């Protein structure tokens, strides 16, 4: 993947997480060994596609702990007041904001159309499958590893 695009994706994701969720992302340049990856209670997945001058898909995999944390920060409420529908909605909106913002940077002409984001519980989440992805981005957060996969031109 183009180094500039990789850098732009990292900057865009960091801006979204810091501005909206007060959550800092630390890019990781090597995938930790499996035994160091802890995901006690599973992952949520959000995906969004875009088509035009640039076409592709971005997929986000958030540990449930991180997803709950950003939802709490986003809504400004206590964790006990957050339900799963709100968490799934926040995860979906994260994909929307991140890729919408990314397209504003890489396609200022606005010819690329953003699809509608989707989110779900990632029951089939597998770190082994993601490790093989050439467009993998990994970020360390205080609430677990954020996995992002870019598939596209």
């Amino acid at each position, binding site marked *: 993947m183009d180094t500039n695009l990789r850098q732009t994706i990292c900057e865009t994701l960091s801006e979204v997480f810091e501005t909206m969720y007060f959550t800092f992302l630390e890019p990781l340049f090597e995938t930790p060994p499996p035994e160091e990856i802890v995901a006690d209670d599973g992952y949520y997945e959000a995906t969004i596609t875009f088509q035009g001058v640039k076409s592709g898909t971005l997929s986000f995999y958030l540990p449930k702990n991180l997803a709950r944390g950003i939802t709490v920060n986003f*809504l400004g409420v206590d964790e006990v007041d957050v339900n799963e529908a709100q968490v799934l909605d926040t995860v979906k909106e994260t994909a929307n904001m991140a890729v919408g913002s990314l397209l504003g940077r890489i396609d200022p002409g*606005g010819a690329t159309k953003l699809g509608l984001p989707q989110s779900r519980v990632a029951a089939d989440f597998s770190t082994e499958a993601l490790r093989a992805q050439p467009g993998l981005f990994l970020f360390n957060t205080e609430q677990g590893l954020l996995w992002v996969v870019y598939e596209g031109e």
Partner: protein
Amino acid sequence: MAFNILVADDSETMRAVVKKTVEMSGVPIGEFHEAANGKEALAILENNWIDVILSDINMPEMGGMELLRTVSASEDYKRIPLIFITTESSEARMEEAKSLGVAGYIKKPFVPETIKAILYEVLAKAYEHRLASDMPHRDDTNSDMDF
């Protein structure tokens, strides 16, 4: 006199965040209406007096740009200022919105001060006669962009 506000966004959590931000801005709020897309927003406009619309662009069923086109073309609704709160931040999209008469444009991700600043500016422009007595003194805030 308070302002009736309509927020259109397919994300329920985003609507809640916008609502909380507007409530904290000091703008006197009368009724607060929520819609999940442009169609729902138009249905609300049919049955309620709305003073300002805050809308996303990328929504299912009917997006924000089509909502803006409809509002701008309607004799009944064209008085209502519409502010986009959206991830779609390309220059081309902003120019398209401007040509259709959008009152303000807020890019996601945003800080609450941006919504506050642009909302004040838009309301001041559209309802100057109501503001002198209704609005608290505006703080100095920075806006990313407004028209």
